[in-house]
């Protein structure tokens, strides 16, 4: 048998194995330098931020600012409550926050993945890094994030994020909710009684079903945030000192000394 006749099938076989592996298994890349947290700027004070509407049903408790911009509809507060913050309906702060959210979203989306091809998160125990996938799903199981308080976890979903009912994100080793970020290119859904951790930055909308708990933020760029009897708590000991952005000029009469 000639070398050529042996080599060709071998190359094809190896190629098939590699191709299948790329499709079905996450691929781990060379480790990046330790990731820095995503700077949220003015969005950092918000527990809930939407573009069009924030709609609540029932006794949702939000800790942190709640806002919309450029829509103005915030409904369901009360019976929902906002503590450690206020409601910002298309005011200056919510506008700045939405601007900063765009920056933060793009920052997260632009990070180089340490692992790509991720889909189902159930049962995984992950170290700090950047994890990318198409549609990310937690189907009722537990995702464990293992790191110190300064370690950063960034998830990039090229389409949606679906967290099914009863799912849980657990922190181990001192990992902080401050440093968990979910960049979602479409919309995110968090199911009934799920216990979720991290800042969700969704390009479109975020829907949280009945009695879920979020230790983080729900930030929607262009759509709505919908809540039902949930508990949303903005982490309170996070890095907030992003680099300042150029001032926005305000039209008006100048009265300086000239």
């Amino acid at each position, binding site marked *: 048998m000639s070398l050529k006749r042996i080599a060709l099938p071998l190359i094809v076989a190896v190629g098939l194995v590699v191709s299948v592996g790329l499709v079905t298994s996450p691929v781990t890349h060379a480790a990046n330098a330790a990731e820095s947290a995503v700077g949220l700027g003015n969005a950092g004070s918000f527990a809930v931020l939407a573009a069009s509407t924030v709609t609540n049903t029932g006794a949702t408790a939000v800790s942190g600012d709640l806002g919309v911009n450029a829509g103005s509809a915030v409904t369901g507060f009360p019976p929902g409550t906002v503590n450690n913050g206020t409601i910002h309906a298309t005011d*200056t702060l919510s506008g700045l926050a939405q601007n900063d959210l765009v920056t933060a979203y793009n920052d997260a989306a632009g990070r180089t993945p340490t692992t790509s091809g991720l889909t189902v998160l159930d049962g995984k125990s992950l170290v700090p890094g950047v994890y990318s996938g198409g549609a990310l799903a937690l189907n009722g199981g537990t995702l464990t994030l293992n790191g110190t308080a300064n370690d950063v976890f960034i998830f990039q979903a090229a389409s949606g994020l679906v967290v099914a009912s009863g799912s849980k994100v657990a922190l181990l080793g001192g990992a902080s909710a401050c440093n968990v970020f979910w960049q979602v290119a479409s919309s995110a859904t968090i199911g009934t009684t799920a216990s979720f951790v991290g800042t969700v930055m969704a390009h479109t909308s975020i829907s949280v079903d009945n009695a879920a708990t979020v230790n983080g933020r729900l930030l929607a760029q262009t759509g709505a945030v919908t809540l039902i009897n949930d508990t949303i708590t903005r982490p309170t000991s*996070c890095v907030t000192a992003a680099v*300042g952005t150029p001032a926005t000029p305000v039209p008006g009469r100048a009265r300086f000394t000239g």
Partner: protein
Amino acid sequence: MNSRRRAAILAGALIATALLSGCGRLADGVVPSAASGTPTPAASATPAPPPAVGTSATATVARLTVYASLGGTVKLTLANPSPTGGPLTLLVLQSSNGWLEVQLPDRPNGSRGWISASQVTLHSLQYDLRVSTEQNTLSLFRDNTLVKTYSVATGTGGTPTPHGSFYLTELLAPSNTGYGPYAFGLSAFSTVLTSFGGGPGQIGLHGTNDAASIGKAVSHGCIRMSNIDITTLAGLLPLGTPITIE
């Protein structure tokens, strides 16, 4: 480098270090106390950022309460947005366990006060400005490295531009003539004029419709630049940016 600017840069670096280590946002409702300890930076796995030029604090509440000292009485409250419509922004001088000492946009020049860190959003600053009234120049620095020096007009002998360490408080797109396309307000006030043009004698950094005045000591205390130069700065500088006038 004068001692005040050096102190501000050192404070910025310390504050940024503390913030980057997770000490940036602290509990609400704590009464200021001189006994409070300074936050201790924790070890971080991330590479050290360049030393911060400073830290700005932008109010997240409609009225920001300013205390005279740690554990002291209320000094004043500041409206947010500021009277000219922009976000109320202050320059942080130092931090102490959830409280921030800030420079105030108020007379006398260099006024200070303490605010709760829970009522502001913090940003680190990369740029600072240094003005020479002797040379009639303004130098732009990024991370303490000179970017460019501009020719400016400053105050006359009778209406001098005050010396000291200040910051940019606001940015207007003036609807009245004489200020060019953009005008920054400073936390500095004229030491001669208590009012001017319906305002409180606040010093500005702005453009002009009198290009021939650039490079001369001809103003009422404001710092004038060419309209092209002020447009450049307006597209670059955050509120809170330190400006030192010597």
